[in-house]
């Protein structure tokens, strides 16, 4: 066909919160080909291990991404702890789990808002982000930061949450739960929303596995892949089952994420009940020597940390394989044959974190 339209999409584009570029080849509005270009956020922060010592690097790790900041910090700390064979206190593990699950909630609600924005549902976006602010308030109260917490440290956590604050958190979560249920009605039942998500960007189970998809992207296609089941931090002591859907379209991914939010609320409540008293941190001495791979579950899926120490203050190598990096091939697969109006939805569907991907 000669009637092909070729347009650039991004890096600066109103629907893209982060810069990524696609060369879109369209027929009418159908996407025939989408070729990505990344590198707009590549900073080269893995190289920073040579300039910052392994303690300072915690702060770098937290700033790999501002949305799952805490999880990055936690993953990095866990890796170093494993290399140095440090067993952190139980309470610290629970606190990490609470913050991690709150992060997941905040990330998913944020994603819901952006998704609503992508299909032009402004009020839904506003409503989602309004709910999200309550969780940010919890963050600010417990850690002092709205986005970047700086509470995770090698050997434990820097700040404790008092019992009454924990109760207050449960109270807020109940309110969030109520408001979210109202929102869920719209996301999962509204006809106009469904018309934009159902059957859009279908990824079969086989394709999801073959393309190495992780996180909600894989879960929505029926691939059970949830690193939390490995029982790191306090997850081993909590009761939960990974959330799976089989349809593999945008609707399924929305559903998986929404269910995960409610699951997180449940997990936090369990944590609040089970959290033991005690220390929150052990003292760390010496320098890491050895190597370790850590896999944890971020809101966007499995993340792999690899660190290699040589006995000095500075690590030899620190590498993060983030979930978005693994999901990009799946995104490209779903983009083929969609329509231009679906492009923002599909880009969002992997919940892209370009700053994670490119580091």
């Amino acid at each position, binding site marked *: 066909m000669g009637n092909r339209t070729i347009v650039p999409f991004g890096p600066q584009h109103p629907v893209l919160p982060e810069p990524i570029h696609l060369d879109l080849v369209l027929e009418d509005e159908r996407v025939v080909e989408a070729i990505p270009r990344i590198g707009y956020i590549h900073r080269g922060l893995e190289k920073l291990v040579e300039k910052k010592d392994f303690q300072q690097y915690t702060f770098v790790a937290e*700033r790999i991404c501002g949305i799952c900041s805490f999880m990055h910090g936690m993953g990095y700390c866990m890796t170093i702890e494993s290399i140095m064979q440090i067993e952190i206190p139980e309470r610290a593990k629970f606190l990490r789990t609470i913050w991690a699950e709150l992060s997941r909630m905040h990330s998913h609600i944020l994603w819901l808002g952006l998704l609503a924005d992508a299909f032009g549902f402004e009020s839904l976006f506003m409503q989602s982000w309004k709910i999200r602010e309550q969780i940010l308030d919890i963050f600010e109260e417990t850690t002092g930061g709205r986005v970047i917490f700086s509470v995770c440290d090698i050997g434990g956590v820097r700040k404790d949450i008092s019992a009454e604050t924990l109760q207050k958190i449960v109270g807020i979560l109940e309110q969030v739960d109520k408001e979210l249920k109202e929102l869920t009605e719209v996301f999962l039942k509204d006809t106009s929303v469904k018309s934009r998500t159902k059957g859009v960007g279908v990824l079969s189970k086989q394709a999801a596995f073959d393309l190495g998809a992780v996180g909600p992207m894989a879960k929505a296609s029926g691939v059970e892949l949830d690193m939390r089941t490995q029982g790191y931090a306090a997850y081993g002591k909590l009761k939960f089952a990974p959330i799976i859907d089989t349809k593999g379209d945008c609707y399924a991914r929305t559903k998986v994420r929404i269910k995960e939010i409610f699951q997180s609320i449940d997990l936090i409540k369990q944590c609040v009940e089970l959290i033991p008293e005690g220390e929150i941190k052990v003292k760390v001495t010496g320098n890491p020597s050895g190597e370790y791979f850590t896999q944890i579950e971020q809101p966007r899926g499995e993340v792999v940390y690899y660190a290699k120490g040589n006995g000095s203050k500075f690590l030899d190598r620190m590498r993060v394989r983030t979930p978005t990096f693994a999901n990009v091939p799946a995104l490209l697969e779903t983009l083929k044959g969609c329509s231009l109006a679906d492009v923002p939805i599909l880009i969002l569907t992997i919940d892209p974190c370009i700053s994670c991907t490119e580091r």
Partner: protein
Amino acid sequence: MKFVKKSPWILHYDGSSCNGCDIEVLACLTPLYDVERFGIINTGNPKHADILLITGSVNEQNIPVVKQLYEQMAEPKVVAAIGICATSGGIFAECYNVVGGVDKVLPVDVYVPGCAARPEAIIDGVVKALAILEEKSKDARKKTGK
């Protein structure tokens, strides 16, 4: 009367930030902070924008992009660097791929510190930018002799 003060439209560009400041910029639009009170709209299109908000330390690939966006904005215009990365490069200043600070690429008018910059700080920054915007529009008038 300079109406630009009453309706500043912003363009947000993420020049390799960690997302932290980006989501705070977006949070400014949401019910709790609602910058539309001041007539602020996030246009997403340089040709309509008055204020360019840049987050992140600007890496090699972004230099031509931000320059082009700046060029495509109509006078009077101001640039606000949001967050530590944009103001100085922050923790990433030493990375091989970042220039460190937007001011290495564009004339920055307002620096909004914070890691991540708080919504209140961003609002403060935009309000400060308005003063500059007004001045610039006066200058522009003088130049054209009107």
